[in-house]
């Protein structure tokens, strides 16, 4: 899932202070689950932003809404009501949602309230950890299901660096060394020989180095889709 964090309040206030009426719009998917951008957070943010102490000029009026997924342009256009008089939308979605709204409601300004931080998963209630960089050329089959690109601070490919101490990474914060975890997992799986296999160099083109990534599926939409991608 996509994990996001609320931007500093001062930054949000600075971005909205010149508008008269702002729609604070939550997103009901990933950012709801990681407690940063759902309906509840939209209500909380709206209440906080409605405090006069944040503004030197007039206090903007706030409306609150939420939609299941802000990254579905046609659904948003069909089902999300923009109250009359709204002159800006403050989106609590990830970057994909913010951009979709900006396309859908052009020229209405759409302001991001979150920083989209990573693709991750919840290891335990209340904690989300980065798991994937979306590199487009997955190597998890070779690494015991643990991604060294996302989970090693140096994204090393062939084993731990000299900064791995007692199973932890030298960058600190209690971050486990991904390569220590990989070797331990491969041992448990009786697949340590995978570690010694010589592999071809990784193709970074699908990781975004080939420009904007796009995936086209045939058979959907208006029939103009063709099997073409720019990243494989």
């Amino acid at each position, binding site marked *: 899932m996509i994990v996001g964090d609320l931007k500093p309040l001062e930054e949000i206030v600075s971005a909205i202070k010149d508008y008269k009426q702002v729609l604070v719009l939550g997103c009901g998917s990933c950012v709801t689950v990681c407690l940063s951008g759902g309906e509840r957070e939209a209500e909380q943010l709206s209440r906080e932003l409605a405090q006069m102490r944040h503004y030197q000029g007039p206090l903007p009026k706030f409306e609150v809404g939420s*939609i*299941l*997924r802000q990254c*579905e342009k*046609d*659904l948003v256009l*069909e*089902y999300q009501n923009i109250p009359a008089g709204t002159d800006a939308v403050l989106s609590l979605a990830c970057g994909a949602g913010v951009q979709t709204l900006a396309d859908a409601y052009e020229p209405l300004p759409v302001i991001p309230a979150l920083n989209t931080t990573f693709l991750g998963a919840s290891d335990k209630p209340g904690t989300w950890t980065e798991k994937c960089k979306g590199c487009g050329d997955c190597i998890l089959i070779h690494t015991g299901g643990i991604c060294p690109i996302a989970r090693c601070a140096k994204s090393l490919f062939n084993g731990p660096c000299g900064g791995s101490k007692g199973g932890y990474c030298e960058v600190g914060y209690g971050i486990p060394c991904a390569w220590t975890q990989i070797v331990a997992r491969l041992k448990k799986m009786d697949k340590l020989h995978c570690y010694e296999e010589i592999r071809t160099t990784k193709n970074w083109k699908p990781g975004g180095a080939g420009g904007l990534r796009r995936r086209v599926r045939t058979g*959907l*939409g208006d029939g103009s889709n063709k099997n073409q991608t720019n990243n494989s």
Partner: protein
Amino acid sequence: MTYFRVNEKCNGCLACVENCPAAALDFADQNDGRTLKHNMTKCARCGQCWRVCPQAAIEFQHLLVGQWDNVITLDLIHCRVCGEPLYSPAYRQEVESKLNPSGEALCPKHRQTDAASKLLHPGQARAKLKSGDQ
């Protein structure tokens, strides 16, 4: 009650069933009838059915803004002073098994009043509280 609803324009073409990426739609032909089926636990609410329906028959808003379902109804204990709903007897029992018995059923406000009264007037607090004198 299903959250996946179609209007009278549905002609049973099954475009939604064929295009559902989550396999949340199915159908059953039996005797003279075709029944469209939806499984909410599989549904990703992606809107693909709504997009591909040639009849514009799918009322997707019901999947976006649904209604509340009652799950369970339990007995309730109220604050003895103001009547504010507090918790179920089972919850009280569970908490009391882990903490010291909390005694009277009181809301946070009246628990504070009760504690203050007990400090100031150890003998009279209980009587005052019972009489509703806050």
